[in-house]
C-alpha cells in the first residue's frame, strides 16, 4: 500500500509519499496556502496528481495519513476516518481553534473526493493522552475559569513514541532489562524532552502548548507568569502583541538577535561560549535531571527530530555530566539517534492501522 502523508500547518501543507519501507519518500513537497474549501480542494488535487506519477503501475492502491496536532484525551491512537470520527473531532475545535478548523475542512474534502481510499488520522497528542495527572495538571482551579481543559499535552508525541520504541528494540537486541527508563530528546525547532518508562511517558517539558518548556528557535520556553503581567501593565501590550513576541520574537532569536536553527547554535564555533548556547545547554540539563527524578533513574537517552544528529555530541556530554553523580557512575547509560522523519513515522502508524483492517 502506498501512503500519502499530509502534514497541514497554519498556512502550508506538507506532503510525502511512501511507496515502501524506505526512510525517504518517493515524492514530497509543500503547497502554500491551502486554507479555504476551494484552495484545499485544488491543493489535494495537485497532491493526488503528483502522487500518481510517483506510484508504480503495479501498486496503485493509496491511503492517506493526516497528522492531527491535537486530539485531546479522546484520541489516544491513530484512527480510520469516518463520519462519526469527524463529529467527535468537531467537539475538540474549541480546544484547538487555530488548527482544527482547517484540518476538519481538509478531512471533509478527502472524504468527499477520495471516498474509496482510506484516510488515517494520526494524532500528535496521542502519546501523552495518558500522561499521569500529577504531570498533566496545572495548579489552577479550573472550576473558577471558563477556559476549557487546561492540561499538559506535550507536542512531539509522534517523535517520542517512535524513538522510544526504536530504543527498546535496540536494547532488546542487546538483552538489556525489560523496563528501560528513557530520556527522549526531540531536537526540533521547538525542542522537547520527555521521560518515558518503556512506552509510557511520565514527564514532558512542553505544556498545553509548545510555548512552555525549552526555548525554541523563536518561542520563549518557560516564563514566570508575572512577566506577562508586567508586559501587559508596563508596555500596555494586549494579549495578541504579547503572544506575537513570545512565539515569534523570542527563543534563540531573542537570545542572539538572529534567526538561527538549533543545530547552528549548538555546533557552530561562532556560538561557542555564547549566552544562548549556555542557556540552551543548561535548560536541557535541568530537563534531563527532572526526567530522571520522574523515572527514578536512567538507562537510555534517545535523540530524534530534525536535528537528531546533534545527539552525537549532546549524548556523550550529557551522560558525562549526569554520571558525575557519585551513585550514577555504576550505572550503564546507552544512547542513540533516531533519524526517521515525522512523515515516515506517520506513514508507519498508518501502515499499522491498515494492516489491522479486515481484508476486503
Amino acid at each position: 500500500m502506498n501512503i500519502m502523508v499530509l502534514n497541514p500547518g497554519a498556512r502550508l501543507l506538507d506532503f510525502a509519499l511512501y511507496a515502501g519501507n524506505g526512510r525517504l519518500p518517493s515524492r514530497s513537497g509543500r503547497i502554500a496556502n491551502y486554507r479555504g474549501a476551494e484552495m484545499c480542494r485544488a491543493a489535494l488535487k495537485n497532491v493526488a496528481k503528483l502522487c500518481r506519477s510517483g506510484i508504480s503501475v503495479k501498486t496503485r492502491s493509496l491511503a492517506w495519513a493526516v497528522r492531527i496536532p491535537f486530539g485531546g484525551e479522546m484520541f489516544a491512537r491513530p484512527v480510520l476516518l469516518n463520519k462519526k470520527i469527524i463529529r467527535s473531532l468537531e467537539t475538540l475545535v474549541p480546544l484547538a481553534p487555530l488548527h482544527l478548523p482547517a484540518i476538519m475542512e481538509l478531512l471533509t474534502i478527502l472524504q468527499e473526493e477520495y471516498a474509496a481510499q482510506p484516510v488515517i488520522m494520526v494524532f500528535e497528542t496521542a502519546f501523552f493522552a495518558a500522561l499521569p495527572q500529577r504531570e498533566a495538571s496545572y495548579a489552577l482551579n479550573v472550576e473558577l475559569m471558563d477556559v476549557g481543559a487546561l492540561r499538559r499535552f506535550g507536542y512531539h508525541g509522534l517523535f517520542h513514541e517512535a524513538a522510544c520504541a526504536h530504543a527498546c528494540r535496540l536494547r532488546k537486541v542487546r538483552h538489556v532489562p525489560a523496563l528501560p527508563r528513557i530520556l527522549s530528546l526531540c531536537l526540533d525547532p521547538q525542542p522537547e524532552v520527555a521521560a518515558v518508562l518503556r512506552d509510557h511517558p511520565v514527564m514532558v517539558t512542553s505544556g498545553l502548548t509548545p510555548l512552555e518548556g525549552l526555548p525554541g528557535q523563536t518561542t520563549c520556553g518557560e516564563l514566570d507568569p508575572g512577566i506577562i503581567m508586567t508586559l501587559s501593565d508596563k508596555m500596555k501590550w494586549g494579549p495578541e502583541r504579547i503572544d506575537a513576541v513570545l512565539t515569534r520574537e523570542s527563543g534563540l532569536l531573542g537570545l542572539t538577535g538572529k534567526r538561527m536553527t538549533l543545530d547552528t547554535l549548538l555546533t557552530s564555533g561562532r556560538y561557542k561560549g555564547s549566552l544562548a548556547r549556555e542557556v540552551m545547554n543548561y535548560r536541557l540539563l535541568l530537563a534531563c535531571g527532572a526526567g530522571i527524578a520522574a523515572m527514578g533513574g536512567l538507562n537510555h537517552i534517545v535523540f530524534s527530530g530534525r536535528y537528531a544528529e546533534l545527539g552525537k555530541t549532546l549524548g556523550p556530554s550529557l551522560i558525562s555530566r549526569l554520571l558525575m553523580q557519585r551513585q550514577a557512575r555504576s550505572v550503564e547509560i546507552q544512547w542513540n539517534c533516531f533519524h526517521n522523519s515525522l512523515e515516515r513515522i506517520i506513514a508507519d502508524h498508518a501502515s499499522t492501522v491498515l494492516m489491522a483492517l479486515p481484508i476486503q
Partner: protein
Amino acid sequence: MNILVLNCGSSSLKYRLIAMPEEVELAAGEAQRIGPKTAEPSRIVHRQDTRESIHTVPMASHAVAFEQIMALLAKHTVLTPDAIGHRVVHGGASFSQPTVINREVIGNLMAIQGLAPLHNPPATALIKDCQSRYSKLPQVAMFDTAFHSTIPDYARTYALPKSLRDDMGIRKYGFHGTSHQYVIEEAARWLGRPLDHLNAVSCHLGSGGASLCAVVNGQSVDNTMGYSPLQGLVMSTRCGDLDPAVTLKLLINAAGSTAAVEALLNKSSGVLGLSGMSGDIRDVLSAVPKTTKQSRRMNRTAQVYLWRIRKYLGAYLAVVSRADAIIFTDTIGESVPLVRWSVCVDMEFFGLKIDEKRNATAMSMPADVAADSSNVRILVIQTNEELAIARGTYRTLRQHAPSLSDSCGGGM
C-alpha cells in the same frame, strides 16, 4: 548590640530583638491585622522571657504598629534596640548585599517598589518612617533576592528579546534567599564542611510560599522562583509554573485585567486551587474525604504538589553534580515527613537514600534523615530568617561602622 529585626508583611509586622553577637533572643512578637478594620481587632502578640501577652490596639498603618512595638520594648531598659534590620523581599538588580539605609538607598528602594507590589511598598514606608523618627538608629536592609545575585547569567536569563530583558529588568531574581542562606550555613556547620565547599539543594517549603535553591560552593546558582514569586513549585495559593499560553488565555478571559489574573494566580491557585478546600498541604494530606470525587481531588492535589518538588529536586541535583546535602526547612519541610519521603524515595541515581524510620521520627532539629549508606545527607534544619537578618545586620554594621557594632545596649 541589640538588633531589632522587622519583617514587614502586607498586614502584619513580625519583630524580634536579638542580642548580637551572642545570638540571644530578648523579645519577639507580631503585630497582626494592620490596616483597615477587620472582623477582629488589631493586636500585638508579644513574647518575652517565655511569657506571651496580647495587646489589643488600633493600628491603621505599619508606622503605628512600629510605634506600639517600640513602646512595648521601652518598658524594659534592657530591650532598647541599637540597630534595626529590615527584611525587604525584592532588591531588584540594585541590591545584592545587606545595605545600610540612607536617603539614596531609600530613593532606590522607591524606584523598585513595582517589582514586589504586595511586599516592598509597606517595607519601604516603614524604613522611611524609622529613618525619620529614629534617625540616630542605624538601619540595614536585607533582601530576599540578594543571596541569588550569584545565579549565573545562563540560569537567570529568559529567552526573550534583549530589549525586554535589558530595558525592563526581566530576569530571574529568586526569593527566600535569607532562609536558604541561613540553612546552607547551618548545614555546612553541621557537616563540618567549609561553606565555600558545600554543594546542596535547599528546599524551603513553607505553608505559604516555597522554593528550591541549587547551591554550588556555598553560593546560589538557581532558584525555582523567578522574576516574581509566582514561578516554580506549587504553593499554598500561588500556581507555580504555567504555560505562558495559559496565562495569556486567562488574560483574554479577564478582558485584559491583569489585576484579576494576578489575583487568580496569586490567591486562588496552588494547593487551594487544586483542592478547593484548603491552601495548606497538611490539611490535604490529612483530609478524610466524604465522597469519591473529593478523595480523587485531594489525591490529585497531593500528587501534583509533591511531583513538582521532586522534578525540581532532580533538576537541581543534576546541576550541582556532587551534592553533599539536601536540606528541608520551613513549616512543611520541617514538620511533614511524608513530603520529605515522597520527594527523596527512589532517587538512588543521585546518591540519595532516605531512611524511613529516621525520617518518620525526626523531632528535634537539625536532624539527618538519610540512610547511613546514602552519599548525600538529607538534613532537616529549622530556618530562622530573623536570626539571619540579625547576623547580616551585625556583619554589615561592623564593616561600615565598627564602633557602632561594638557598643552594647542603650545606644539609641
